[in-house]
């Protein structure tokens, strides 16, 4: 019996995410059966737009969770970003400067998060729970709690303009998926995220700098959330301090649904993309099927459990197959 061969076989059995892909397809099929408009170009675009903020943050959270970290402040940062965009815009009138300042602010908050985790050695969960509260407060403070209107048309276009029929926020989302997907899977930096999450000590001893990586990841997530907030403001024509409560949980859920593990060291952007679309598609589908509000809560919880269970069973079956073939071979 050649164990080595079998192990190679195990590695090669394709992509971990087939189960989810099937789940996505099944979901689309079911919803389309009940409502023929579900699988329309229009609706797909709707789903993409609705997912555009969660998707951006899900990318950042995927990075963080793979590295064994988490950022609970993302929803607050998005709200802060949306208000800041409106405020800066009204005083500068310059779209570029506005987006720049908003993204910088997001990065600053990311740095703050990283410092609490790196230097004060606080648990990421609790450190970012603290900044979640602080940043939400700041979002209210800079606008005195009142939504700030945006009249600048070129800024509003960021939210509504279409290029080849695709709205700008969706284009930004897709580009982010691609760029961050490539960085994660094909660059040294990307791979070092797995190392830090898989074994922080090993990472450090191998000459990587986990603190630096932590810093960068929080900066990235801060930037993405703030940028997402600015785009939200553009889409809704106003900056709203109370927006996006719980965004981080939606984003993390998408990442985990896509195969990212809380224990760290495991996950892909492709999986997260699937997770984002399954969740948003499901939400949209439930509304289209006119499922009663309260049952939607139940349905969403069940979806999560079922999708993850399905994934678990599929993996187990695959392992069993490998085992059986190895027993047959020997």
């Amino acid at each position, binding site marked *: 019996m050649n164990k080595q061969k079998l192990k*190679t076989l195990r590695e090669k059995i394709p992509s971990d995410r087939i189960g989810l892909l099937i789940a996505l397809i099944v979901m689309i099929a079911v919803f389309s059966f009940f409502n023929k408009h579900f699988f329309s170009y229009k609706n797909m675009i709707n789903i993409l737009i609705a997912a555009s903020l969660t998707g951006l943050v899900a990318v950042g959270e995927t990075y963080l969770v793979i590295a064994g970290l988490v950022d609970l402040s993302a929803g607050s940062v998005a709200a802060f970003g949306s208000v800041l965009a409106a405020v800066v815009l009204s005083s500068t009138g310059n779209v570029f400067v506005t987006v720049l300042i908003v993204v910088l602010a997001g990065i600053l908050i990311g740095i703050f998060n990283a410092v609490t985790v790196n230097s004060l050695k606080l648990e990421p969960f609790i450190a970012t729970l603290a900044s979640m509260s602080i940043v939400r407060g700041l979002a209210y403070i800079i606008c005195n709690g009142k939504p700030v209107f945006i009249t600048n048309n070129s800024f509003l276009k960021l939210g509504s303009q279409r290029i080849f029929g695709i709205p700008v926020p969706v284009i930004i989302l897709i580009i982010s998926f691609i760029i961050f997907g490539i960085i994660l899977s094909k*660059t*040294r930096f990307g791979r070092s995220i*797995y*190392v830090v999450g*898989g*074994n922080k000590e090993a990472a450090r001893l*191998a000459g*990587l700098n986990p603190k630096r990586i932590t810093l960068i990841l929080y900066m990235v997530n801060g930037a993405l959330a703030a940028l997402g907030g600015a785009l939200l403001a553009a889409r809704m024509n106003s900056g709203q301090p109370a927006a996006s409560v719980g965004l981080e949980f939606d984003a993390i859920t998408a990442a985990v649904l896509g195969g990212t593990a809380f224990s760290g*060291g495991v996950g892909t952007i492709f999986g997260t993309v699937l997770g984002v679309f399954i969740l948003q598609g499901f939400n949209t589908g439930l509304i289209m099927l006119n499922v009663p509000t309260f049952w939607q809560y139940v349905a969403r919880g069940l979806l999560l459990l079922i999708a993850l269970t399905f994934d678990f069973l599929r993996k187990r079956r695959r392992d069993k197959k490998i085992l059986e073939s190895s027993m047959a071979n020997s």
Partner: protein
Amino acid sequence: MKDILEFSGITKYFPGVKALDNVSFKANSGEVLAFLGENGAGKSTLLKILNGDFQPTSGKYILNGEAKHFKSPKEAIDEGISIIYQERQIVLDISVAENIFLGQQPIKKNGLIDYKKLYQDAKKIIDEFGLNIDPRAKVRNISIAHQQMVEIMKAYSRDLKVIAFDEPTASLSDSEIEILFEIINKLKKENKIIIYVSHRMKELERIADKVVVFKDGKFVDLVKRNDVTNNDLITMMVGRDLGDIFNELDRSKSYGDTILEVNKLTTNDVSDVSFSLREGEILGFAGLVGAGRTEVMRAIFGADKVNSGKIMLENKEVNSKSPKQAIKKGIVLCPEDRKLQGILPNLSVGYNISIAVLDNIINKIGFINNKKENVLVKDSINTFNIKTPNATKKIVELSGGNQQKAIVARWLATNPKVLILDEPTKGIDVGAKAEFYKLICDCAKNGMGVILISSELPEVIGLSDRIIVMKDGYITGEVMREEATEEKILAYAMLEGEVN
């Protein structure tokens, strides 16, 4: 070019411990300098200072005339210092190749990782080592021995001046050790500074040119290996002559009834394994890496699923579905992988020791009797000479060997009917080993059945009454104590054709 590494007056304190005390000596390139010393003597600490992981409380070290003050391992790696750590530092969910080239993956012009080259380069190193490992395999899925070899390849793949091995052979079998020694000889020819830490005298005999002896954090001496005998070295590190440890053991020759009988045991990893163990008997298990010894024991212990076959304890069939049940019935297993299966890292030394015997120190309603627990823990610490400032110290802050002693102490405290030890002496120093052997013999004399798995053949041979040899999940031979030689055992371990 000749490189010189000089330690000068290095002192290192930890809370409650002076790990190194004014240590000074020199290492030259082109020779293998061995570190020898009891568990907790400060060997690993010195290596961690060497690579910038720890900063010395005082003192410095000098590489080629230049004092170094590395603030992180990265700085040391950049200067050509490479260490294989005592505790495996491997990333389980990425590939072998990526572990080897951790942080140094080859990149293409566009900045992206050149995966083709990565796998080729990894394959080249793996071939150079003469191993059969798939560079694309997830490290989680390869054997522990191979994981250890990946660690070695990782250090080796770097551009280096100094390479230090901290007990690299603890989870290797002889064939990998041979490979390792070849590599070390090659590094020696390439004029590297090589530091080698091990408790195995046999290895030092073969590989070391010079030996530095430590005791209680102090530098004792630096000697040429050929100028001294093993006994000289042991006397230097332990403070007394241990004599011939195996011959001096008080062995009972009379066994009692059969206590454990295993009949045609088959699991996912092993097939058709049958053997029996008697009261008072020490039964050794030998075999190469991947022979399946660990898996047999895990199945008996209820840690792995049994597909078919019978396990009888005192003539009653036992079918333990969990370690808990096995322990209740009197079968215990001290697992081979201290880090993943043994220590409870966040907990104190005391909690680590008492965990398997809490039943003996609670009252009827489940309250732990503190006094009893303290007595038990103190006894274990004294019996095993575990070096710790107090019982509340977190176990991860102990030296590797002392952690191992605590885990072995945990299992011996259970006083079972059948005691299974999987690589129990991993990383334990010679003096402590001698004490440990005596304890095992006492256990057997009191009627316990003992199963000993060890990759150190002299240990298996010296201690066992009977030795079973395995290969590829099957038993391939059995040797009685009187007729046991390394050659005979190896012959069974590498038996061709007859398996199945």
